[in-house]
């Protein structure tokens, strides 16, 4: 029986808080599990460095992901080569797994347009800051894949618990249900939408159950258990693609990954105003990284030595990414007008000339003093 066929309130778990196996393991190779561990450590370390860059004035406002690694890394690893990813703004870890270089993510938060350019061979949509808007894009792309007969392609879309209050979310799920789109809606329920708690966001007992109203399955998974996340995401993707059993057809799924944001909403936020330290501690006991570490140690996949090697490697890679991002020069004024239209209209040439005249006359300082 599919792990998706269950009550939406019946939480899927594979590892308990100590990393002991309490559910059926997903069909996954050891190498992938170790890679997931490595990616989670990398995401955590990246996050720590990014927050400190912001504190030092080397980067603008940044939304931290710490605590949410399992949901991101577990689900991104479940994706197949032809699947697409539609992120919101906090999924730096998942984007990295799918091929967005770390320095690119840093550049975006450092305010460079170049940070928004997704590499050509990567099927990840640009960051979506306006809440829930990307859910419709994901449905549309999935719908197109289905209309074009691309049976191997499904769309994974991330959004938060707060996003489920926006109209766009409901329209996206409704269309998906009506048109049987190959969609996996993945809610990163981190318990908070800035200062507003999950209970205040919806009177539904679970977010997963909202799928019932749209005519498809919703499943709650322990979002701090990377193996459980991998498992439900994989099954949902299979259901969405031709890999699904022929009788069930391609159908969407809503996954609610129950998790917690350890840090602030963004570096501009002070969570001590609205939540207790005790609550944070309670959730820290579920930290996905030590959980997977102890599972891997028990299975002989990791030991002190390999963990240290991973730590060193991750530290180096993040340091390199920072160096690379910081070595990018401030963009030139013409970047303002690039890619607005396919061809730059006359008025853009005029406006660029206005900036260039001022630079020629006074130097760049007049803009940046």
């Amino acid at each position, binding site marked *: 029986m599919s792990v998706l066929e269950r009550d939406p309130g019946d939480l899927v778990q594979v590892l308990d808080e100590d990393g002991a196996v309490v559910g059926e393991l997903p069909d996954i190779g050891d190498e992938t599990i170790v890679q997931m561990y490595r990616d989670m450590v990398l995401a955590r370390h990246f996050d720590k460095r990014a927050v400190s860059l912001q504190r030092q004035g080397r980067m603008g406002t940044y939304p931290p992901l710490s605590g949410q690694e399992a949901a991101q890394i577990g689900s991104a690893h479940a994706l197949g080569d032809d699947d697409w990813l539609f992120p919101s703004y906090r999924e730096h870890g998942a984007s990295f797994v799918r091929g967005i270089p770390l320095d690119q993510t840093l550049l975006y938060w450092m*305010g460079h*347009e170049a940070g928004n350019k997704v590499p050509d061979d990567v099927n990840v949509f640009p960051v979506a800051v306006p809440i829930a808007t990307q859910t419709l894009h994901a449905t549309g792309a999935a719908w197109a894949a289905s209309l074009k007969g691309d049976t191997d392609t499904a769309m994974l879309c991330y959004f938060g618990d*707060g996003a489920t209050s926006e109209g766009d979310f409901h329209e996206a799920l409704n269309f998906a249900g009506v048109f049987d789109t190959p969609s996996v809606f993945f809610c990163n329920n981190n318990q908070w939408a800035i200062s507003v708690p999950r209970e205040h966001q*919806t009177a539904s007992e679970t977010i997963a159950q909202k799928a019932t109203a749209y005519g498809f399955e919703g499943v709650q998974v322990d979002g701090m258990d990377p193996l459980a996340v991998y498992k439900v995401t994989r099954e949902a993707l299979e259901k969405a693609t031709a890999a699904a059993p022929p009788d069930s057809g391609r159908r969407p799924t809503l996954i609610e990954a129950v998790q917690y944001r350890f840090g602030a909403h963004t570096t501009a936020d002070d969570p001590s105003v609205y939540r207790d330290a005790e609550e944070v501690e309670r959730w820290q006991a579920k930290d996905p990284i030590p959980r997977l570490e102890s599972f891997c140690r028990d299975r002989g996949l990791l030991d002190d030595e390999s963990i240290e090697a991973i730590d060193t490697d991750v530290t180096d890679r993040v340091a390199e990414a920072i160096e690379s991002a910081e070595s990018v020069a401030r963009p030139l004024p013409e970047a303002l007008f690039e890619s607005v239209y396919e061809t730059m209209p006359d008025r853009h040439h005029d406006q660029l000339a206005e900036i260039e005249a001022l630079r020629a006359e006074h130097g760049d300082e007049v*803009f*940046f003093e």
Partner: protein
Amino acid sequence: MSTQETTGQTQSLTLVQAVRDGLYTEMSADEDVIVMGEDVGKNGGVFRATEGLWEQFGDDRVIDTPLAESGIVGTAVGMAAYGLKPVPEIQFSGFMYPAFDQIVSHVARLRNRSRGRFTCPMVIRAPYGGGIRAPEHHSESKEAFYAHEAGLKVVMPSTPYDTKGLLISAIRDPDPVIFLEPKLIYRAFRGDVPEDEYTVPIGEATTRREGSDVSVFTYGAMTRPTMEAVEELAEEGIDAEMIDLRTVSPLDREAIVESFKKTGRAVVVNEAPKTGSLAGEITAIIQEEALLYQEAPVNRVSGFDVPYPLYALEDYYLPNAARITKAITETVEF
């Protein structure tokens, strides 16, 4: 109307504190006034514009809503029609768009459509504008969308004093007001603000500097680089008059025309993208009402016609004192 005692005192407040003080003053005076929005309660708003109001007035008057702008504004329409005076906050003006249908189709038109039977006295507050190194979609200046819509008034203050006085006027106004707050200068400086209630009338510009050579029209956060430019030019012998419009809908046509008739030259400064912005409207007013006084083309110093850039480029995007100075000089020397 007010139940508050008058103190005759003034406080030295930042602009964002003046927002809070205006809300506090009206909420104290009129229990129908309620604040609603994302993170406005316990968190006191992401810019702290509603700080302490939840503690003071409680859950029923300072309401943390689910994350849904159409929900916020759409329910506020019903609330207003029923007799409350909602003051919804939209966290950033860049996130007004889910509510755009409600604003355009209902907030602006309820009075008209119901032939006066139902009205929509509400104030939709939102911080607007660039210059704070904010993430994508957090820096736009799209007042023209709302000024384009009959039935709405659009207010954009630039000082703490005006902010409180205009906000109180807006809350007391029988019609809906879009109240756009210049977040770049939320905390840039302080100004004296009376503790008591007072109003600054909607639709009235004010002269920040009198002059005879050229009229410079601006509003909101752009008043700062404009004043810098105007003062610098005064030292060089160019005597510019600077008008802070304060309300962009309805525009104070009389003030615009009167100043222009005196100087015969005009520069308009705003940070919205040039095409379709209020600068064009101001130019048209001059053409319609003072053509024969005109001695130079009206010069528009605006944002460029591009999506607001990520912050590494925003200093090129935003009008600055050098650009404004150049435009004023060209206009005077024409």
